[in-house]
C-alpha cells in the first residue's frame, strides 16, 4: 500500500514538473555521454596498448649508403660489423633482456615495405638499396629499451636505435589529452546537472507543500515524505544515463565498428560489447549524483 502510494506520488510529481524533468534528463544525458566518451577513449588506449605492445620491437638500423650518423663513418655497414652486432645480441649481458631477434635484410625490408604500402604509388619509386637493414628485437620488458639503446647506438655500423613504442606513446598522449578534455567538459556538465536537479526538487517540493505539510501533521514517516522527491530526481537521472549509454553503444557499433574499422583495418578498435561495462558505471553515477543532490536539497527545503 505504502509502495503503491509512493509510486503514485512519484508519477504525479514527474507529470507536474515535466519540463524540468526533461531538462534534468537532457543535462545528465550530455554530461554522462562525456564521462562515457572519456571512458571509451581509455578503453581504446588499453586495447591498442595490449595489441601493439606485443608486436612493437626495438629496431637497430644499420648504416646504409648515405647515412650520416657518427657510427657510419665507413659507409654502409660491413658484414663483419653485422656479425659483431649479432654476437653482442647473443652475449649474456644483452640476451637476458631479449626474447628473440631477427635480422631484416634490405630485401626483406623492401618486401615488407611493398606489403605495407601496396596501394601507394611511393612503392614504385623505392629500391631495396634505399631501405636500411636492421635487427628487430622483441624485448622481454619493453621498459628496458634504454639498455639496448645505450649498448648499440655507439657500435660501429649502427645508424640509429628506435623504440617503436615511442611512436605509439605519442598517439596515446594525444588520446589521453582528448579524454582529459572530455572529463573536464563532463565535470562542468555534472555541476550543471547537480544544480538543475537541486532546482527541480526544490520546485517540486514547493508545488507539493500542501501535501507534504499534511503528511507531516498526520505523522507520515520521513521516508514516505522524502522518497518520492528523491526518486523523482533519480529516475530522471537514470533515464539520462540510459540515453548516454545507448549513445556510446551506438558510437562503438556504427562509428567504430562499421566506419572506422573499414578505414583503418589494422587498428584494433573496441567492440560494442566492451562499452557495455561502462553502462552500469554511468547509471550508478547518475543515480548517485541525483540521490545526493536531492537529499541535500530536501534537507534545506522540505522540513520533516
Amino acid at each position, binding site marked *: 500500500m*505504502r509502495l503503491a*502510494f509512493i509510486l503514485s506520488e512519484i508519477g504525479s510529481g514527474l507529470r507536474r514538473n515535466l519540463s524540468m524533468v526533461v531538462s534534468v534528463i537532457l543535462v545528465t544525458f550530455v554530461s554522462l555521454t562525456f564521462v562515457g566518451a572519456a571512458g571509451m577513449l581509455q578503453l581504446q588506449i588499453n586495447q591498442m596498448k595490449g595489441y601493439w605492445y606485443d608486436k612493437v620491437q626495438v629496431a637497430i638500423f644499420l648504416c646504409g649508403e648515405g647515412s650520416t650518423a657518427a657510427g657510419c663513418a665507413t659507409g654502409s655497414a660491413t658484414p663483419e660489423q653485422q656479425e659483431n652486432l649479432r654476437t653482442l645480441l647473443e652475449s649474456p649481458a644483452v640476451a637476458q633482456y631479449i626474447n628473440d631477434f631477427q635480422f631484416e635484410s634490405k630485401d626483406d625490408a623492401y618486401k615488407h615495405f611493398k606489403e605495407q604500402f601496396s596501394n601507394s604509388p611511393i612503392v614504385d619509386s623505392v629500391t631495396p638499396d634505399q631501405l636500411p637493414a636492421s635487427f628487430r628485437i622483441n624485448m622481454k620488458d619493453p621498459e628496458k629499451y634504454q639498455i639496448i639503446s645505450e649498448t648499440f647506438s655507439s657500435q660501429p655500423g649502427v645508424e640509429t636505435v628506435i623504440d617503436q613504442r615511442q611512436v605509439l606513446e605519442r598517439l596515446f598522449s594525444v588520446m589521453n589529452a582528448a579524454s582529459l578534455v572530455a572529463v573536464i567538459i563532463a565535470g562542468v556538465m555534472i555541476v550543471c546537472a547537480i544544480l538543475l536537479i537541486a532546482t527541480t526538487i526544490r520546485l517540486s517540493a514547493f508545488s507539493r507543500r500542501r*501535501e507534504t505539510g499534511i503528511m507531516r501533521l*498526520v505523522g507520515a514517516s520521513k521516508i514516505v515524505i522524502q522518497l518520492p522527491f528523491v526518486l523523482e530526481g533519480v529516475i530522471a537521472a537514470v533515464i539520462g544515463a540510459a540515453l548516454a549509454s545507448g549513445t556510446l553503444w551506438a558510437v562503438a557499433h556504427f562509428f567504430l565498428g562499421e566506419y572506422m574499422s573499414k578505414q583503418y583495418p589494422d587498428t584494433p578498435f573496441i567492440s560494442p560489447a566492451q562499452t557495455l561495462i561502462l553502462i552500469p558505471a554511468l547509471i550508478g553515477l547518475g543515480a548517485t549524483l541525483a540521490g545526493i543532490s536531492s537529499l541535500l536539497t530536501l534537507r534545506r527545503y522540505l522540513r520533516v
Partner: protein
Amino acid sequence: MIRFENVTKVYDQTTRPALDSVNLEIDRGEFAFLVGASGSGKSTFLRLVLKEDRATSGAVYVAGQNVANISSWRVPRLRRGIGVVFQDFRLLPQKNVFANVAFAMQVIGKSRSIIRDTVPEVLKTVGLEGKEHRMPHELSGGEQQRVAIARAVVNRPGILLADEPTGNLDPTTSMGIMGVLDKINQNGTTVVMATHDDDIVNEMRKRVVELRNGVVIRDEARALYTSMIPVVGQSRRLKDASGRPDNPEEDPGDGSFPSQTGEAL
C-alpha cells in the same frame, strides 16, 4: 494527556517570550478552550505539543512522554497520536472528500481495505454522508472544515488540536462544527481548541485556559469567555452589537499578527 511544566518559549531574544513559565495539565478525555488575543501564545502552545518547535526551557509531556526526549525519527509516531485542525481547512484541492480523508491513512501505510471501511464511518461521524465524491470547492466552509476534522481523527488520535477551527465560519455553522468536536470528545478524544470566539466558549461551558502575553492568567472549569478582555478580529465582527471599545493597549500582540486578523476580516 498534555502537561506543561514551567514551559518558556522565546522565538527572538529581543522580544518578550511567546510563552512564559506556563504550567498546565490537560487530562485524558478533557475538552479545553485556549483563549486569548492573537499573539497571546495559543499557537505556540499547540506547536510545542506537536514538537514543531522546541521549548526554550521547561518540559512538555504528551501522553506521558517528554517530547524533548523523542528522537526526530520518532516524531511521526507522536504526531499520529495527535489530530490537528486549522482555521483555513488545508484540504487538497485536487482530491475529493473521500481521497482527502483517505490521504491521512495512505501516508502512514494503512491498507486499502481498512481505508475503505474507516473513511465512510468517519465521514458519517462528522455529518458528511453521501458527499464522498464532492471536490473541496463544491463544499461550503463548514463542510470543508468537517472534512478537515474527519481527516484529523481518521487515525483515531488520542488528542485533537484545533487552531481557531471556526475562525472562517459564521456563527450557525460554527455551532455545527462545535457539535462535531463535542461528539469526538465524547468518544474519548482529548480536545484542545484555541479560539477567539466568545459565543462558542460561552455556549459550550467547558474548561477555559486564558493566555495573555504568554502567561496563563485564568484556568477555570465550565467557564465563560468573560468580556473583560477586549477582543479584536473576527470575534468583534460577530459581537459588535455589544459595542465594546477597542483597547489596543491591552492587546499588544495583535499588531504583530496582521495576517490572522486580516483573514478574519
